[in-house]
């Protein structure tokens, strides 16, 4: 289950995509995020509760600014680099 956090507005598209199926809940991305924008949340998958990385509620509507500092267009954001399972992806397209 791919969860898209973020939005598109007049200036571009800004999404952090977390694959809840491959995320193992290790929390490395949560530790590595310099803005403390991530946390582990419980998600129901196949009737099981599973801890999965998620963008904190308060950052979802300003992700362009929260994540902008990591220069996501280079795909070397700390959260992406920290994930051994490639469960974190950034889709960033400034117009």
């Amino acid at each position: 289950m791919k969860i898209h956090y973020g939005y598109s507005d007049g200036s571009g598209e800004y999404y952090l995509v977390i694959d809840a199926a491959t995320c193992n809940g290790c929390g490395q991305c949560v530790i590595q995020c310099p803005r403390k924008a991530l946390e582990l949340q419980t998600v129901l998958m196949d009737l099981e509760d599973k801890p999965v990385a998620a963008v904190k509620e308060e950052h979802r509507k300003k992700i362009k600014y929260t994540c902008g500092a990591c220069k996501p267009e280079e795909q070397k954001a700390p959260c992406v680099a920290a994930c051994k399972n490639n469960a974190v992806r950034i889709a960033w397209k400034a117009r």
Partner: protein
Amino acid sequence: MSQKETTGFWRWEEYHRVFPERKKKGLITAGVDVGSVGSKAAIMIDGEAYSWAVKRTGSNSPDSAIKVLGWALEGTGLSVADLKYTVGTGYGRVNVPMANKAITEIACHAKGANFIWGPTVRTVLDVGGQDIKAIRIDETGRVTSFLMNDKCAAGTGRGMEVFADLLQIPIEQIGEVSLKVDKEPEPVSCTCVAFAKTEAMGLLRNGWSKEKVLAAYTRAMALRMANLINRVGLEKELVITGGQCKNVGIVSRIETIMNVKCLPSPNWKENGLDPMVAGAFGAALLARALYLKAQAG
């Protein structure tokens, strides 16, 4: 004119439905979907819809949950004590006092769409009162990908209520009225409800008809929804759940923009399943699955 007549255009009809002829024995579960604008409750027996109710959400979520579930149980001869498992969902899901578990509305709408339209559904657009979700599902109703809308209540049911009120058109007719234009106007440039309202008032002052203004707003909304669908990727069949599934102006515009036909809303007024209640149906089905799983140990 009285106060009531001038402010009531946004009010949509609350209702409840019972199918007493459907059998009463079996595993009884409930789903309560407390949305930001509407609250829905569904009672299911062995995975078959038995009764449901739709109400406006008041200012008190636990209260709305209790009331809508009570209404769904009315005339069924059942009480809350008969419910083996209840799942709360929606915006106010943590405020459903009688729920055994709270589940996000994404999973519930996916399951509900699969229940209403069957296994061919792959893309669900849920247009709620306060947000829009584009959801991709597999043939079992499991979520494979989803996206919530951005920033604000732009392009949602609440926005439509605001426009119904501004243009003094009953909310049930708003879709049809928006289609009464010879030529589709340019969409309003702002989808933010507050700004769009300002823009609409400017257009009215410039001599635009109500129909044209409404068409421009509805088109802007539909374009935004199409954007969300494109983000998760459109795969047929596409269905629309939530209150706006009843807005023919939105549905037909999305079909035109995406060049796809939505599966039609079942004939819910007579005996079908209301797509607006999809989240509550899904919640009741997940409640059943969770109960059976717990029993199996």
